[in-house]
């Protein structure tokens, strides 16, 4: 994967391009609709008994308590890992983390590694960093393979190739597999079983010859030093057991204090993400087991903006996130724009808060546009397995953007409009004056057409109103506001 999100325009502009792609709209509506339905069915089973709400509360409470004493739990995790024979590295940012992974590969004289699907390694741009060091990183998750072969960008946390349909995937396999290893068979069809078979054969060669694997982790248990990877395809299990060297890049918020804490999360995660009661493969490993599996185990504990997010009083709840993608699948904005418009490996509602929280607001137009990429409908909060109140964090992030940009030229127009509105809304008499003006305007506007209710309609507004009227009519302002009517009649004659 050589492409990056660098240079993605601000959300409204990126969304405009995505919305114009009818194939993308169809693929996304179909895929998100399917996963939504599956999730709803398996969550309903536990909602009937009240268990689901208890699991959510437990998941949120474990994460909050852990984040509250994150330093202590991380030190405990390090001690347990070292006792189990693992080597622990601390990385402040993407550059440090990538350098650690590259130096391990170099030390073993390797020019390729196999990879388990991992958001942390995607976040730090590990594949590109390794490529720059002459090391090929092969993605082994089916969807990540599709993205990598297609020189594409991920558009979903769980299903990074969600924007592709089967016909497109067949094309990519036929065109690109030969350049990366075993070619796809000439008679490949777009049947899911045939596509999966082609991927399996292609990847098998890579698994068998790999000297090193790179993974992330869904959870890291402090008391035992155990890392956990939850997956569906079994490619992860291959990566975790075949190569001699295993390097795991783990965000510092992934730590949970005890083995028993996994109970809640291993129920919450599969039901929320793939809509399954239990996922097919759950792998756990604790350092090095002599004579079995990798004999050299490294863990890179990654900050890269997480402590910045932790310092945000409202936003820190985003660090509870277990990367299930339920919020993406129910988001009406994501369903229409897809993930690329968010300009990050973290798209959708959670991405719209995580990116600004981890990178900070006030310096980058693209990042600052993300908290506004939501209608605040609340569907994300409703499904979140760890109760992240995404709408409230979005609103708080918007306030931080406005505060950071006060007086900045990019916000002069909007700021003046808001100050004007605040002035008018600050007093009923000022508001009445503004309404009288609108009523006068209404006499001239809206004469040409009436709506089915018999009211005059305005089809073209000037200035900022043009963004409204490009596709939407507006009722002409009434001759008399409610307030003016009340004043005239004292509320009689309804």
């Amino acid at each position, binding site marked *: 994967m050589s492409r990056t999100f660098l240079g993605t325009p601000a959300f409204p502009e990126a969304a405009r391009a995505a919305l114009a792609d009818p194939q993308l709209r169809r693929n996304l509506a179909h895929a998100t609709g399917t996963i939504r339905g599956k999730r709803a069915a398996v969550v309903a089973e536990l909602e009937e008994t009240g268990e689901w709400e208890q699991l959510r509360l437990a998941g949120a409470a474990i994460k909050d308590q852990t984040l509250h004493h994150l330093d202590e739990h991380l030190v405990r995790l390090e001690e347990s890992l070292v006792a189990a024979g693992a080597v622990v590295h601390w990385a402040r940012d993407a550059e440090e983390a990538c350098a650690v992974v590259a130096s391990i590969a170099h030390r073993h004289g390797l020019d390729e590694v196999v990879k388990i699907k991992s958001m942390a390694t995607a976040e730090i741009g590990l594949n590109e960093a390794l490529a720059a060091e002459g090391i090929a990183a092969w993605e082994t998750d089916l969807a990540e393979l599709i993205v990598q072969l297609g020189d594409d960008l991920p558009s979903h946390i769980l299903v990074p190739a969600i924007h592709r349909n089967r016909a497109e995937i067949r094309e990519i396999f036929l065109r690109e597999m030969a350049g990366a290893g075993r070619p796809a068979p000439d008679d490949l069809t777009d049947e899911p079983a045939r596509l999966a078979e082609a991927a399996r054969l292609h990847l098998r060669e890579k698994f068998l010859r790999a000297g090193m694997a790179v993974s992330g982790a869904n959870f890291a248990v402090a008391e035992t030093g155990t890392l956990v990877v939850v997956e569906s395809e079994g490619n992860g299990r291959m990566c975790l057991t075949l190569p001699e060297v295993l390097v795991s890049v783990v965000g510092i918020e992934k730590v949970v204090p005890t083995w028993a804490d996994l109970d809640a999360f291993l129920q919450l995660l599969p039901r929320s993400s793939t809509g399954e009661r239990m996922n097919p493969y759950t792998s756990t490993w604790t350092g090095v087991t002599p004579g079995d599996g990798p004999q050299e185990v490294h863990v890179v504990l990654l900050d890269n903006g997480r402590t910045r997010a932790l310092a945000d009083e409202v936003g820190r709840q985003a660090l509870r996130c277990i990367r299930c993608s339920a919020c993406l699948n129910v988001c009406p904005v994501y369903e229409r724009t897809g993930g690329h418009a968010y300009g990050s490996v973290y798209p959708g509602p959670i991405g719209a808060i995580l990116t600004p929280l981890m990178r900070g607001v006030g310096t980058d137009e693209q990042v600052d546009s993300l908290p506004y990429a939501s209608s605040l409908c609340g569907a994300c909060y409703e499904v979140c397995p760890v109760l992240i109140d995404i709408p409230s964090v979005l609103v708080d992030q918007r306030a931080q953007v406005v505060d950071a940009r006060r007086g900045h030229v990019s916000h002069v127009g909007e700021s003046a409009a808001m100050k004007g509105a605040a002035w008018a809304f600050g007093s009923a008499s000022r508001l009445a004056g503004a309404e009288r003006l609108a009523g006068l305007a209404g006499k001239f506007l809206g004469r040409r057409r009436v709506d089915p209710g018999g009211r005059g309609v305005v089809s073209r507004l000037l200035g900022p109103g043009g963004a*409204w009227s490009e596709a939407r009519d507006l009722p002409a302002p009434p001759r008399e506001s409610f307030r003016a009517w009340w004043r005239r009649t004292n509320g009689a004659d309804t």
Partner: protein
Amino acid sequence: MVTCVNDAMFPDVGKATLTLLRRLGVDVEFPTAQTCCAQPMVNTGYLDEAVPVVRTFVDAFEGYDHVVTPSGSCAGSCRHQHSIVARRSGDAGLQRAVAEVSPRVSELSEFLVDVLGVEDVGAHYPHRVTYHPTCHSLRMLGVGDRPTRLLRAVKGLDLVELPAAEQCCGFGGTFAVKNADTSVAMGSDKARHVRETGADVLVAGDSSCLMHVGGLLSRQRAGVRVVHLAEVLASTEASAREVAS
């Protein structure tokens, strides 16, 4: 609380709310000092600008038993956001006033069903109607099926189910202009679902959402009217005869 959108753009919704509540025996006043709930500022990130607006709100509504509003969104803003604005102001007096007034705000269907305990409000509305549950009513307030229980009790009304009803219409306040393309894409799908029902009238509990979907339906010459829940519930056989004559 009539709301700024209804006051300035949809005065008939305010009048219908008044008619309905009076018919049900409620002693209703319109405190003329009211303006707006401050949601446009809060949701766009202008918290400082929201402070004087919230102050105006509590000044206008202090001392009433109930504050009833024909808007799920404005009720949600009062109940869930006013405390944030008050905290930002650093004014302990405002925080106390907000803690006193904001919990007394009810959306119309909540007030009718929970406080007055009525579902059949004696309305008559002989039309084929579909209902869009607006996001803030549904998810912020949790009004559940109160609005549809009220609608089902209306004489002559034929309620048809809206496909994908619980998905957002795409209005979202300033989202509608800051992200106009996405907003319109969402609204177009909503408008398509409305047309699929064959309903003559789309009903919802928020005028702003209706203004958005109605604006799209009007541009498409879809021949579907958008009507606020309060207007449906205020209609009677007598009022229909009056309009006809």
